[in-house]
């Protein structure tokens, strides 16, 4: 190594530069963490504010208390909460079944209509989903599944077309070696047995990812829920209900209650998410890599 000394020197120079750049990075990351967390800290603090219910320019409550949380009991909040929870539960169960059926089939079977079907669904996906809302609302209304009875209607709307969201889990199934299927088939297993006994036990990460995203979807959906419940407070989900508290005529009496409601909605979903984070991360990165 004739260039030993110079390399050494460069290396030492790098560490000094490295220390500086690491410090800068720490500062950036800490500032970022503060910015990213601040709104959530603020919302929690404001939810405990007792002295006034309207929007204020300050964060720290002058008087702390559970008044806003208790006041939620006198509103429709818990009703919306139950609505959303029921919807999320059904959607998680049914949507997972549909998505898995679809993605497994498109990954494993080679049938004549496969390519045209995938292209067709790609094209369908380019239409804004909201467009279909106009007619679905009217049809569901005729079936008595809107406004006060929006819950079954919403479940139907969420799960019916969920087969089109097969990309992420198809990407997963594509990575499971086909040799496994073939070995089992040679041993005399039917296609159904292959899926049930061999693939599904291996697919735990993607099943959990699908359940998790399907469960979280209804908590945040605004537009479909707003359309199907159509101004009926009994049929709203939390997103539509809490948004209605921030309209001009309500915000002054409900702002801190909105904060309290938001905290109550966020806590269980966040806990669930943090527990299953690993699967979510796998799904998201896998989905992005495979497009």
């Amino acid at each position, binding site marked *: 190594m004739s260039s030993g000394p110079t390399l050494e020197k460069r290396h030492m120079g790098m560490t000094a530069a490295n220390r500086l750049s690491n410090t800068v990075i720490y500062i950036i990351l800490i500032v970022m963490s503060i910015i990213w967390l601040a709104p*959530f800290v603020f919302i929690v603090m404001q939810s405990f504010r007792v002295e006034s219910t309207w929007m204020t320019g300050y964060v720290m409550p002058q008087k702390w208390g559970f008044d806003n949380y208790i006041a939620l009991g006198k509103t429709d909040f818990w009703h919306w909460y139950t609505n959303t929870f029921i919807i999320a539960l059904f959607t998680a169960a049914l949507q997972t079944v549909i998505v898995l059926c679809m993605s497994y089939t498109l990954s494993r079977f080679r049938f004549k209509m496969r390519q045209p079907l995938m292209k067709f669904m790609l094209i369908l996906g380019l239409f804004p989903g909201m467009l279909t809302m106009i007619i679905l609302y009217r049809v569901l209304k005729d079936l008595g599944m809107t406004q006060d009875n929006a819950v079954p209607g919403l479940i139907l709307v969420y799960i019916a077309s969920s087969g089109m969201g097969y990309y992420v889990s198809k990407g997963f199934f594509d990575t499971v070696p086909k040799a496994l299927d073939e070995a089992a088939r040679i041993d005399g297993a039917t296609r159904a047995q292959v899926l049930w006994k061999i693939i599904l036990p291996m697919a735990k990460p993607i099943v959990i990812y699908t359940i998790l995203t399907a469960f979280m979807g209804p908590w945040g959906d605004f537009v479909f829920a707003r359309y199907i419940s159509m101004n009926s407070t009994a049929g709203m989900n939390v997103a539509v209900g809490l948004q209605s508290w921030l309209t001009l005529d309500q915000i002054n009496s409900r702002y801190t209650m909105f904060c309290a409601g938001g905290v109550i909605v966020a806590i269980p979903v966040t806990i669930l998410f943090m527990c299953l984070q690993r699967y979510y991360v796998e799904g998201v990165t896998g989905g992005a890599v495979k497009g």
Partner: protein
Amino acid sequence: MLSEREINYLRMPRWQKPFWRLGQGLAAIPKGFGRFFAGIGRGIAGFFKGVGENIADIGRTFKNGNAVTKGSFVVMGLANMCRGQFLRGLLFLLMEAVFIVYMITTGGYWLSMLPSLGLVGPQEEYDLILDTYVTTYHDNSFKILLYGVLTIFFIIAFIVTWRMNVKQAKISQEMIESGHRLKSSGDDLRSLVDEGFYKTLLALPLTGILIFTVMPIVFMILVAFTNYDGTHDGYFNSLFHWVGMENFNQVITWGSGSTVYSATFGEVLTWTLIWAFFATFTNYFLGIFVAMMINKKGIRFKKGFRTILVMTIAIPQFISLLYVSKMFAKNGIVNGFLMDMGWITTALPFWEQANWARITIILVNIWIGIPYLMLVATGILMNIPADLYESARIDGASPWKQFSKITLPYMLFITGPYLLTQFTGNMNNFNVIYLLTTGGPTNPAASGASGAVGYTDLLVTWLFKITTGAESKYYMASVVGILIFIVVAIITLIVYNFLPSIKNEEDFQ
């Protein structure tokens, strides 16, 4: 061996290369469109060729068929049943029976009304018993259009089934004549969990998509050619009817429509594209940047920083969006803080002025989007072979060089399709816009274009406002929806022609 073109490229001065590449890319656009339309042309030609071949085959089947095969032309499933395939025969026969009964009882009516969408609207009629005028309701345009579309779907399904029935009659006759055994009903049922398992698996998802996506989209496309709106709801107040291209003329002034819609469309589309561009690329590059910072060797608490960012994904978006929107309000926390510090005396118009609102939205969207991109980028960065960096370091490449020559090309290559879906997703990003600004501040010039169209409205939020607005111009909403589709489709086509990473699907397996 390098081609002459490649040698020329390598000989070019450095500054000229990007321009040359851009030129090549732009030059490829017409070719891409050419390919696309040629593809459509081939598709249509193939369709008619297929129809012709099918008709010829049906003729041959009839000519060569024995009595049972010929009988299947009229009584569906006859051949199957006579040859021992009871289940298939029964299903064919059932389909025929249902079809005939449906067409006679109601289908024929819906189909006959489809061209007019209803003849008699609600009437004021004198009621002898009540001794007053009461409104009686007659035709229902909405139902006529809906069931008309369904009937057409059903007819197509029937024709396809009938063709299948004829084909099976032919095949079963040939197999019997050549002494083969036919599949029994038991074989058919067993196949549903084995070779034909895909039929079982796809039945439910595809039915859902057909009823809840395909049918509504066909219906809504047709609505764009009617005058269906709040005052023509088709039953209670007035019938609606076909108007041809009139609605499109209003948005794209190739006719003599009013200019409000076309002007609004131009503005909203421009902002939609600007927004999608910035929302996608700011998040993308900053996300990569943050991921690289957290992943850098020697940085500690990697997991902690990552968890803080990921937590913001977990909290339902509507909460964070609504809360942040109020934070930036005139009397919100941000203005309150800035005034307390004495840095400003009057509140900053974050949501009140067009450009302020647009920039604030993009900034808030960065706050929303970075955690996702950080996750995605982290996963991919870890997959970049470490020896690439190793050899780059030995060659003395600066960190910037390493980023621009290794990291970025690798990321772009892998995430090309993802970027595209992000872009189109942002074009239709209803939640961020609607929950932050509800599209405001209102654009006074667009007041005629249904609903309070604002400076931050995207095409989708405009669509939403049109349908929920006072006039409920559903036909305009569906025109906007179709235009969104066209814009998104064009972008997708262009990008797909450029992307290097659209690999053969089977390569992954």
